[in-house]
């Protein structure tokens, strides 16, 4: 015989303020206090290799970067490699936009190309321990890392059909920069590093505007408030950093310049640093 309280199944030990809360109560949420949480893998770097900026350049860019990363791995630096999509992702977004597909569908389509890129990197790093991992493998990360493997994964978050439509525009707001950042934030990672083909952040796209000025260090809020049209990372990452608990800064570096990755992994302020505050 089931016991009930206020019309709902009740068992010993269930009483708590949360049980009868709707979870939308403002006061209830405030009373939960500030976010503090354990760090899951605090010694691990989360590193993104750009799709258009690095992968689409082929071996002239990819091989030296992998060499530098593998050397760092040999020195005991531990990291997860994440991939961007690049040109093929842009092509399929373009096709999807032309067909007026919803954002959730575009996010689904955008997910396949970074997986291809992850597989390419795995083939190139297999003899140094490169393995491809998928979201369902993430609770085995300590095992992979402790065996000396280099986990390689798509930077895309697993949102797919559940990606929200943006207020303006149809391209998914959460793409590989966002997925990489959120992964780092969840892990409480040592740092989140974006390897691109520019020194870092400029006031405009330096590939199109030669007058663009370099910005070495800036807060996410200042960057959002500046209203600048183009950015070196997805805009939603700036919003996430502002609200984050663990990863309060990201670093964007030029992987085409030898030594930059090593310098960043040693904690040097190369490239651009975007901070929460």
């Amino acid at each position, binding site marked *: 015989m089931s016991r*009930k309280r*206020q*019309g*709902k*199944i009740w068992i010993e030990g*269930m009483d*708590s303020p*949360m*049980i009868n*809360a*709707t*979870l*939308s109560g403002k006061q209830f*949420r*405030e009373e*939960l*206090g500030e*976010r*503090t*949480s354990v760090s*899951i893998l605090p010694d691990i770097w989360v590193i993104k290799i750009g799709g*258009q900026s690095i992968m*689409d*350049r082929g071996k002239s860019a990819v091989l030296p970067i992998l060499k530098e990363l593998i050397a760092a791995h040999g020195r005991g630096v531990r990291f997860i490699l994440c991939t961007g999509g690049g*040109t093929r992702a*842009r*092509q399929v*977004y*373009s096709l999807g*936009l032309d067909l*007026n*597909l*919803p*954002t959730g*569908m575009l996010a689904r389509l955008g997910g396949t190309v970074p997986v291809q890129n992850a597989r390419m990197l795995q083939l190139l790093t297999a003899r140094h321990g490169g393995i491809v991992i998928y979201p369902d493998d*993430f609770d085995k990360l300590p095992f992979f890392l402790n065996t000396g493997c280099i986990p390689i994964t798509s930077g895309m*978050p*697993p*949102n*797919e*059909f*559940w990606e*929200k*439509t*943006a*207020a303006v*525009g*149809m*391209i998914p707001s*959460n793409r590989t920069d966002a997925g990489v950042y959120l*992964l780092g*934030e*969840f892990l409480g990672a040592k740092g989140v590093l974006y390897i691109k083909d520019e020194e870092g952040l400029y006031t405009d*796209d330096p*590939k199109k505007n030669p007058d663009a000025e370099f910005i070495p260090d800036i807060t996410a809020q200042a960057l959002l408030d500046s209203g600048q049209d*183009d*950015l070196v990372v997805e805009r939603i990452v700036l919003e*996430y950093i502002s*609200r984050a*608990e663990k990863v309060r800064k990201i670093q964007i570096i030029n992987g085409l310049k030898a030594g930059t990755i090593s310098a960043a992994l040693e904690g040097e302020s190369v490239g651009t640093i975007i901070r929460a505050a």
Partner: protein
Amino acid sequence: MSDFVKDDGRTHMKSGLMRESLVSKTLIEQTDTATVQRMVPDVCMLAVGGRSIMDRGSEAILPLVAAIAELKKDFKLIVGVGGGARARHTYEIGIDLDLPIGGLARIVGGVEENNRDILQFLLAPHGGITFIKDHFQDLQLFLGNGMIPICIGQPPYHFWEPPSKEKGRLPDNGPDVGLFLQAEVIGAERVIYIKDVDGVYTDDPQKNPDVEFIPAISARELLDGDFPDLPIERELLRTLDDSRSVTSVRVINGLDTDNLRRALNGEDVGTIIYSRRYSAAEGRNQ
């Protein structure tokens, strides 16, 4: 190979987005559109409350199951469900253990699966089957064969759950948001939240007797106004307001199952919450 452009060291494919950062505000504005293609436009999403319906046991669940079985003869339905008391207990223990928000989001869906499996069992004689992420694109196979797909609500953001906008330590995204987003990408005809209150009030009517019923309100007004408690997630309101296909949702009292019949028939029952793109004249989405 003539469609490839290699003049800057990168191999581009010619497309409207070639060389674009996809971050430029100007570019993003150019991709804007008011409506999008619909995948399965004649389906209705029924979001069954975990705490409000499932935790009430047989007295609430069995009449609802009977009503869904009957209404399925006239409507294509997807049934989604939340976690209820066990989801709250999960959060309570998870927060005490200082788990990060992505950890909470990863774990909480497990108890929704209990509720999905219970509804699937009860609806099986009428075609109830479990509907999971990997079979999302098989939806028409199920509907075309007279089945009732039954799914969990929590969206699969898992470890990638963003830092919350709301105060406190809970994920912003729960089953209300997850079921809405499924309906949005499907381009569903209606989304109906089945709860144990008549709709939206100025505060929780089960705790505060001094409340007023709201038959119709915009998502923006609900977000910005002084509403200490709501029967739906606040993130649902933000998500709804930016949506392109599903521009309104309805919150009804499922303890009287006639409300469900009326809502599916487009009658004005419970509370309608509408987005800035909602157009009553179009007659879509209620």
